[in-house]
């Protein structure tokens, strides 16, 4: 279970970092989303994994720590809002610049490349 969880988080973060380093804003947004999934899972696992009960019920003595769950919920909400905001900015940038390169400078180059493609 531990190995599965740890490697799951690792794969999510690795994919996220890879995508985030790409130069197109859509890939960056996807990468950040994957990374925040990984981080949320990590936060969740901080409360230790194991079979303790989360909800108060009769005859149960060991409960799982509720705080990491609260932290994870907060992190999900904030991450979601921030991703939405980033998407809006990236979209506005794309509409205005006609390119989703993160530096917004490759417009001329791309239209030049398209021009060449049409000529061929």
């Amino acid at each position: 279970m531990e190995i599965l969880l740890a490697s799951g988080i690792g794969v999510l973060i690795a994919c996220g970092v890879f995508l985030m380093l790409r130069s197109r804003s859509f890939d960056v947004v996807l990468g950040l989303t994957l990374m925040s999934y990984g981080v949320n899972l990590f936060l969740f696992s901080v409360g230790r994994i194991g079979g303790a009960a989360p909800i108060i019920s009769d005859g149960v003595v060991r409960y799982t720590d509720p705080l990491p769950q609260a932290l994870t919920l907060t992190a999900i909400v904030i991450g979601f809002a921030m991703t939405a905001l980033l998407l809006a900015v990236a979209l506005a940038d794309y509409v205005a610049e006609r390119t989703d390169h993160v530096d917004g400078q490759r417009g001329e180059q791309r239209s030049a490349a398209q021009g060449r493609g049409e000529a061929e």
Partner: protein
Amino acid sequence: MNLLLAAPVVIPIVAAAALVVMRGASATARHAVGIAATLTFLAIAVVLFAHAADGRSEVLLVGNWRVPFGIALLLDRLSAWMLLLTGFVGVAALLAAIGGGQARALHFHALFQAQLAGVAGAFLTNDLFNLFVFFEVLLAASYGLLLYSGERQTRGASLHYIIFNLVGSLLFLIAAGLIYGIAGTLSFAELATIGGKVSADDMPMLQAAMLLLLVVFSIKAAALPLGLWLPATYGAADAPVAALFALLTKVGIYAVVRVFVGVFGTMAPDSPWIYLSSAIPWVGALTLLFGALGALAAHHLRGLAASLVLASAGTLLIGTGLPGGVAAAMYYAAHSTLAGAALFLVADVIRRGRGRVEDRLEPAPAVGRAGLIGGMFFVVAVAIAGLPPLSGFIGKSMLIAELFSHDGRGHLAAAVLLGSLTTLIALSRAGSTLFWHAEPHAPGEHVRRGGRGSLYGAGMLLGGLLALVVAAGPAQRYVGQLAEQVDATRADARAILDTQPRPQYGRQP
């Protein structure tokens, strides 16, 4: 008194919500609400400052839960000092934004208030995760403030700024998770008590978490390898917004002081901060020199001002990494925030007065009211470069005296002085180009005037700088006591843990 602690967060939040609802109201009504909320903020900051100056720290248990279960707000000299600074810069920036027309943008006032709420919350909270939440609040508002002008250059800079800070937030979450996993708490007061209780197996994890936290705070404070976003972002922001942003890097510095000097620094003898703190002044020195070089290379005055914010962050980091350097750093923080914000506003007045050339450092027809504006520029430049008799000199001399009182730190003073010299050269070059290389006006072209709002805002900030000089003695005493109070292991900080909830109505205590 206790409930007043929540006011610096609650009042701007309520005002922001009201301003969002008031989208149909006239600009005058929105201005009125914005000004009223910001002035109230400043008034409460003054009251809290007067209270904390006596050395009493106040604790507010939010939601009436004891500390390990609930989150406490803490008012001590450090948070009161930063709150007062926030209120003052907030009023000046708002004045500039209203006079300059930027505040007419639909949700400017709401975003501005949200920004104040986030900054105030970050200064007051006594919990690591709550610090994260308030960081997000102030960042979300800063994204909005940066973006509303909608110019192309701003949008590009904003995208980088947002992405960079989102990654920083994720690192913050990882660090907070690790610390909770090891210590079982995120409250600063309780974290300060875990020194010696951390097992040898957990220590590397704790050190990794602290390094991650330091990275996050360095992003906020714009320390060198992580501060490259700052000049582009601040240079692209509107002047009143940039003036407010001069405060945001200080939130990062504040976090370093509160969390590292105050909480982790005291986990002796095995605190990783002992190793980290010896490296931080060097990072600060590099940041300072980089910022000063950036100022020398700037093509326009706003870029120069943004690079100088970087340089001041470097100077502050040198102070925070020294045992006993916190006092100098906090005095310099107040000075550099006021001076940096004033420079942004003066740059705006110059930009509006020069027409097509804007604030590019090229010879052009002189600005209107050149005597007044040039005089203000001169005063700000003297303050920032750290020449006597203004507050920059006092701050830097405190810092250098502190550097020489430690073995092996004396050569950092060379970095401080070199940074000051480079800043001085950059500012004198900019000033002589802007005011002395004035070309005659083309026939038919009239002298331009503008930026009245920025002028008033800059005037207010200069008044603040002057107050720091006039009251330098009491201010130095205050920051000295502040530095002693930061240590979270002292008895009155531990009192947070013993603070009992109030008895509730209708129930036996």
